[in-house]
């Protein structure tokens, strides 16, 4: 939709080869200078439990039963998807707070963010978080590194190739060649910038089959926004028309001549 050029970059996530080392989490913190955070052990290796203002990416440790084993461990990278049709960008009221980089990433500018937190309500993946100043915090595809010709810190660190960065078209072609029939995110929301080579149904990995921008945001965008302009315009035009065609109010006590 907005940015489907051949230049679009992406991260391909292949859970099957992830060993859950969390090097990506550490590399992200190092590059973006994000402090550590105290968390509680809730009986899972997953840490942190979810994305945080200081955790732009994380590995989700899903335990699901398999045919051969009571537990099958799925390690899935979770982060901003850099949607082509991004709910966060649609709903954001502040110009420049969220912007599209030339690689197709959805990056942010904290100085322009007003901290209204509407992007939380617009994101299909519950990604945006807020720092202590109430400003947006999330993965920005290391656009600062990309600008210098480097790849993102997480993909650079990943030892197994579970996270790979490159031209989106190429990554998709390669994953298909490797035998993954469907690539999650290939066409959803105009095409995601974080794409997944899943062996099983997306649900198993914690992703909705068909991710969607919330209905309320679509309705607001397509109906309410135009109505706000038509409403004001109509009211002003109506008043003017009334003034010209009918004129000021007259309620004299005098005899009513015509009806």
């Amino acid at each position, binding site marked *: 939709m907005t940015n489907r050029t051949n230049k679009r970059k992406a991260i391909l996530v292949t859970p099957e080869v992830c060993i859950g080392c969390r090097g990506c989490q550490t590399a992200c913190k190092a590059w973006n200078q994000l402090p550590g955070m105290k968390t509680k052990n809730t009986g899972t290796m997953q840490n942190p439990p979810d994305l945080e203002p200081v955790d732009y990416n994380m590995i989700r440790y899903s335990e699901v039963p398999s045919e051969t084993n009571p537990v099958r461990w799925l390690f899935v990278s979770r982060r901003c998807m850099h949607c082509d049709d991004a709910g966060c960008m649609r*709903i*954001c*009221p*502040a*110009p*420049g*707070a969220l912007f599209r980089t030339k690689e197709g990433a959805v990056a942010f500018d904290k*100085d*322009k*963010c*007003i*901290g*209204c*937190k*509407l992007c*939380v*309500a617009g994101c299909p993946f*519950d990604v945006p978080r*807020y720092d202590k100043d109430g400003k947006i915090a999330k993965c920005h595809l290391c656009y600062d590194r990309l600008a210098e010709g480097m790849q993102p810190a997480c993909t650079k660190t990943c030892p197994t190739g579970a996270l790979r960065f490159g031209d989106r078209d190429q990554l998709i072609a390669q994953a298909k060649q490797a035998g993954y029939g469907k690539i999650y995110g290939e066409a959803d929301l105009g095409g995601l910038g974080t794409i997944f080579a899943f062996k099983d149904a997306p649900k198993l990995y914690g992703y909705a089959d068909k991710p969607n921008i*919330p209905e*309320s*945001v679509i*309705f*607001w965008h397509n109906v*309410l*926004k135009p*109505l*706000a302009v038509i*409403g*004001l315009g*109509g*009211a*002003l035009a*109506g*008043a003017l028309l*009334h*003034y010209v*065609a*009918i*004129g*000021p*109010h*007259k*309620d*004299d*006590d*005098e005899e*009513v*001549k*015509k*009806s």
Partner: protein
Amino acid sequence: MSEMVRKAGNEEIINHWIMAVSCILLIITGYGFLFQLKGVYALFGGNYAMKVVHNWAGVVFIVSLFATMFNYLREALTYDADDWAWIKMGGGYLSKSAKKAPPMGKLNTGQKFYYLVILAAGIVIAASGFSIWQVQGNRALTQVSHLVHNLAFILFVVAVPVHAYLGTLANPGTFRIMVYGTVPIEFARKKYPKWMKEIGK
């Protein structure tokens, strides 16, 4: 000089202007948000500054709206047969020729309706605004609030300009009520006969 009748007290006039100015600020900044209007943001001194203006103008607006209840609420809830007759003739606004409107009290039927609509929509827009502003970590609530805030906004941008038109150009002689608070006695007898009778003039 003819004798004057006081229709609005000073506190009523001051409160009305506080409400009007905050409402217009809210509408302007509201459009700024809706369409990411850079010029409007610049007018208020930048992105964050405009958000602060909007939020606090919202607080001022809802406080002044509540204050109007002392002035108009009882009147706005009182109806009789004349109101029905007024509705049927559209208040006399729909035809060029002069028509005799049914006798009205301090507020006419249209004004009473307008007041109740603004009161309700004002409470709704303030409640949803506060929710977007202050409540965190409840996605569904933010989504509903965002929707409701914008629905009420549409009502405002239709109703407020019409109200301003009716209070100025459409009814010569009324605007002075929001400046001086008084009107000539003959004018008052014509416009608010029931109220005049009530106060014995």
